[in-house]
């Protein structure tokens, strides 16, 4: 990719997606959803080792993105209206979140400038000097060793509150789209024909299925496979067109 976007590890999927879009919006006409999705998935790859909560957020955004992409790839799909509405809702929610994130990101740049100025004037934090120490009331008038120990244990206990509770345990996709594409190609190299269900039989997570689906669409675009589906909801059948090298 020609885009050099410096991404913060704490940015999260919304922030990253925003960065990716902003990097491209220099030339709006050049924005390609395909590239966006690819870059986003690459970012996911980089973040595999991150905590589960982050992973979940990535999943949600990835799923929305992929759904958007799939809709574009298959414009004539015959989903019912309810699905269509849900899809637009999801997309709108994503856009709203991106816009909100952008507002805070932009204002935070102003904060940065204000802070830069603010640190040049350092405030006195010394407080009461020794010459007036005797005027300060004793903050620990009723101090005893037991209270001290209790306070210490209480502080440590408060610290044990989990900062990042393991809420959702959905794993990140184990494979990239490129790898999924290779696996499908390998599968078809052996069998020549297969249904999509057969290809993803070993997939453990829903996102793995989505990744394979994207891989399949890419193979179709490359002209390596032919895809047929008799009806909406019927098995998707794949047929190998070219021997992969």
């Amino acid at each position, binding site marked *: 990719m020609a885009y050099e976007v410096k991404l913060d590890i704490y940015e*999260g999927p919304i922030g990253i997606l925003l960065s990716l879009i902003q990097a491209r919006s220099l030339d709006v006409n050049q*924005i390609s959803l395909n590239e966006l999705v690819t870059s986003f998935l690459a970012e996911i790859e980089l973040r595999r080792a991150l905590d589960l909560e982050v992973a979940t957020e990535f999943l949600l955004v990835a799923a929305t993105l992929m759904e958007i992409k799939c809709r*574009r790839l298959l414009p004539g799909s015959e989903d019912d209206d309810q699905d269509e509405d849900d899809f637009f809702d999801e997309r709108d929610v994503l856009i709203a979140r991106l*816009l909100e994130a952008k507002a805070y990101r932009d204002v935070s740049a102003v904060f940065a400038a204000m802070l830069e*100025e603010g640190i040049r004037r350092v405030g006195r934090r010394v407080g009461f000097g020794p010459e007036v120490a005797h005027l300060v009331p004793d903050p620990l008038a009723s101090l005893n060793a037991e209270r001290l120990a209790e306070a210490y244990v209480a502080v440590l206990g408060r610290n044990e509150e989990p900062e990042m509770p393991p809420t959702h345990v959905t794993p990140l996709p184990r494979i990239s789209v490129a790898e999924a594409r290779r696996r499908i190609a390998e599968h078809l190299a052996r069998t020549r024909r297969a249904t999509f269900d057969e290809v993803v039989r070993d997939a453990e997570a829903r996102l793995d299925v989505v990744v394979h689906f994207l891989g399949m669409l890419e193979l179709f675009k490359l002209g390596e496979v032919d895809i047929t589906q008799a009806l909406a909801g019927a098995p998707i059948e794949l047929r190998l067109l070219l021997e992969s090298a």
Partner: protein
Amino acid sequence: MNPSGVAEGLAAALEALILVASEPVTLAQLSRAAEATERDCELALAELQRRYCDSRFGIEIASLAGGYRFVTKARHHRAIGRFAEETFDVRLSPAALETLAIVAYQQPISRRRVSAIRGVNSDAVMRMLAVKGYIHPVGRENSAGSAVLFATTTLFLERLGLSSLADLPALAEFEPSVEVAESIEAALREEA
């Protein structure tokens, strides 16, 4: 003592009070401690602030975070940087700045809510901001056991050079323009 002597004595007392405070001191606090009317204090403070404007002084009395406070003049920041005790480093990462912005505009706010807006768990960043003294817990959502709510501190106002939260930049001005919204929408609409 003549009237000007009183005013002079008051200014000196206020100066001493501002020196021992480790946070901005409000007019009300000064008035109570100096046993003078707020009006008299205000006059004395104006005189004090004027005095320190003189370039011979390296320090001044700033009106910040709703109070008065001794600060160094900006042009000495390099010398102070070299002295840097516990380092006055306040460079914040983009993630920390974003988080701080959300807390500033939405306070009081829970960690979870901040995470929801940012779309990424922000507990660690929030914790760091609290340890640095930019935000602090101010209560709980409903009752004991529910989420802790955070707000910005006087240190935050001070470091941004604001006298109150009302002086924050208006968020409305940062709402993305229609063109931006359209370009984001286009990015998600464009066919592959």
